[in-house]
């Protein structure tokens, strides 16, 4: 017992104290994510999708809106059309590349909107408590009474088709769950000692919210929001598939599935292509969110 202690004491006196660079929380999370190959792969796929959307005009081999009555529904691998053509003779490969623009836009923007609004509402409800909490959370409860698909379709069905309308309806769909998560985390954090200490040392409400509450709430809520991205991609393209989202001739994966439905007897595999894109994006969002959740759960 005493021998190790003595040598430890000797070490302290003989060597300079080791410099421990303690990594911050986010650096730790990042290092853990990098070790998880599946998550890294999914993140890379998503980055490729994003680059494809941004640089679509340079990558796409043909004009995505150029129709050709002579070359309708060409098969996959036809000359000049690597992935065939759609029901109006437009190049599928180019349309899939251009489709990333709108599909990712309407699949991601509603979650970002809902993340901003939902976090604000949830933190307010959790921090202020009392009557404000009751009003916000009971209103949120009402929206939980609708299955999410039904709510999205009800609102965009009433508003009518259009990109703006589907973003509005999907934002409304995702605000309630995010608010609920933000509220429950805020309520937990609010009762912790360091908030009490900050208040006792004279910090005002805004500082407490900014430093102590948001610092602890944003992480979990962000993780939750990333898990909604996959749902949002499926729902947004689903709205277009029903004819409630983007309007033709725009290139958007859900809408392309819709217009190609008539072609499943003549050229089935070309008709199924846009769905592969939606599925790939959505599964990558899901796996990435799982990986992030594991990386941030430092306890495990």
């Amino acid at each position, binding site marked *: 017992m005493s021998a190790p202690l003595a040598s430890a004491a000797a070490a302290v006196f003989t060597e300079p104290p080791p410099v421990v660079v303690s990594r911050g929380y986010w650096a730790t999370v990042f290092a853990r994510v990098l070790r998880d190959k599946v998550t890294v792969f999914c993140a890379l796929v998503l980055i490729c999708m994003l680059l494809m959307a941004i640089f679509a005009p340079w990558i796409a081999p043909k004009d995505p809106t150029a129709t050709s009555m002579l070359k309708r529904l060409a098969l996959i691998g036809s000359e000049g059309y690597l992935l065939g053509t759609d029901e109006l003779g437009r190049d599928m490969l180019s349309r899939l590349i251009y489709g990333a623009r709108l599909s990712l836009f309407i699949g991601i923007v509603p979650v970002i909107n809902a993340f901003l609004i939902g976090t604000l509402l949830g933190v307010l409800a959790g921090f202020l408590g009392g009557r404000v909490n009751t009003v916000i959370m009971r209103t949120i409860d009402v929206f939980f009474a609708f299955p999410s698909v039904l709510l999205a379709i009800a609102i965009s069905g009433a508003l009518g088709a259009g990109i703006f309308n589907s973003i509005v309806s999907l934002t409304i769909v995702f605000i309630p769950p995010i608010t609920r998560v933000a509220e429950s985390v805020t309520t937990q954090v609010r009762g912790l000692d360091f908030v009490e200490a900050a208040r006792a040392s004279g910090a005002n409400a805004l500082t407490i919210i900014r430093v102590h509450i948001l610092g602890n709430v944003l992480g979990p809520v962000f993780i939750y929001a990333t898990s909604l991205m996959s749902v949002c991609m499926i729902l947004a393209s689903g709205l277009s598939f029903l004819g409630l989202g983007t309007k033709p001739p725009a290139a958007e994966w859900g809408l392309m599935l819709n217009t190609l439905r008539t072609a499943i007897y003549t050229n089935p595999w070309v008709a199924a292509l846009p769905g592969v894109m939606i599925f790939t994006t959505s*599964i990558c969002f*899901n796996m990435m969110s799982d990986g992030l959740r594991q990386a941030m759960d430092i306890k495990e």
Partner: protein
Amino acid sequence: MFTYILKRILYVIPIGLAVSLVCFSLVFLAPGDPLSAILPPDATTELIERLKADYGFDKPLPVQFGKWVLRAAQGDLGTSIATGRPVNSEIAKAISNTFMLAMFACGIGFSFGLVFGFVAGYVRNTWLDKVVTGIAVTGVSLPHYWLGMVMVIIFAVLLDWLPAMGAGAGGSDAWAWDWEHVRFLVLPAVTLSFIPMGIVTRTTRAVVAEILNQEFVQALRAKGMDSLGVFKHVVKNAAPTLLAVMGIQLGYLLGGSILVETVFSWPGTGFLLNTAIFQRDLPLLQGTILFLAMFFVVLNVLVDILQSIFDPRIRR
């Protein structure tokens, strides 16, 4: 116990009212006049006024809402603008088809989900667990309308084993429980079952793994209980959570099958909603959504009550 159940049942009233308010407001989200769909372009102001009075659009909004809710509570959801038939008879025809589809999909999805979840929870962090988790993630990430299309391509177009759409000869009126009709149900039900399969697998795996990690399981094993006995304890402890998830999934399928119903032209409430939206038939849209949402609310309360019977700790 009874106070809890009574409380949950009474809770339906405020939520139900709020849900009706949301459904009622849908009309005001819609651009243009709700009557424009049935009015001829050269309608006289007299005719417009008369129709407004007939549909009650001339009254102040709170009065309109009050009247609408009172009539809805008595089972009268108004008249469809497009067909002129009562909305509730349209819903009654469609809901049995949606219910049938959802029950079949849940049957398939829950069975696979529970088996997969229990297996994965027991063999956590093995290759088998990874396979099952992969299947589950695929299930929740699939755009089911696309899966429906792929199913049609494989089983209807290429193999020609099953019909691609509809509900058989004579539509939903001539439904019978023979293969001639049931085969129309197979593809939509299997397509729809992927979502609950994925979600139930994920939840079951997490719950089972968590229970197996608890000390009481170790105690039971140390006591010498065989694995079947331990399994019974695991099932008992997992039941409340699983019940809640499955109840909500059933509700989601009832209200959210619109995309799959559209792919397969299945004559259910989703198909009805689709028609209502594209014919701008607002009473039909409002009525169908109100009906489905109220169904979901009641289902949630039932699940809560059942859960509290299984697990008394919830009644706090």
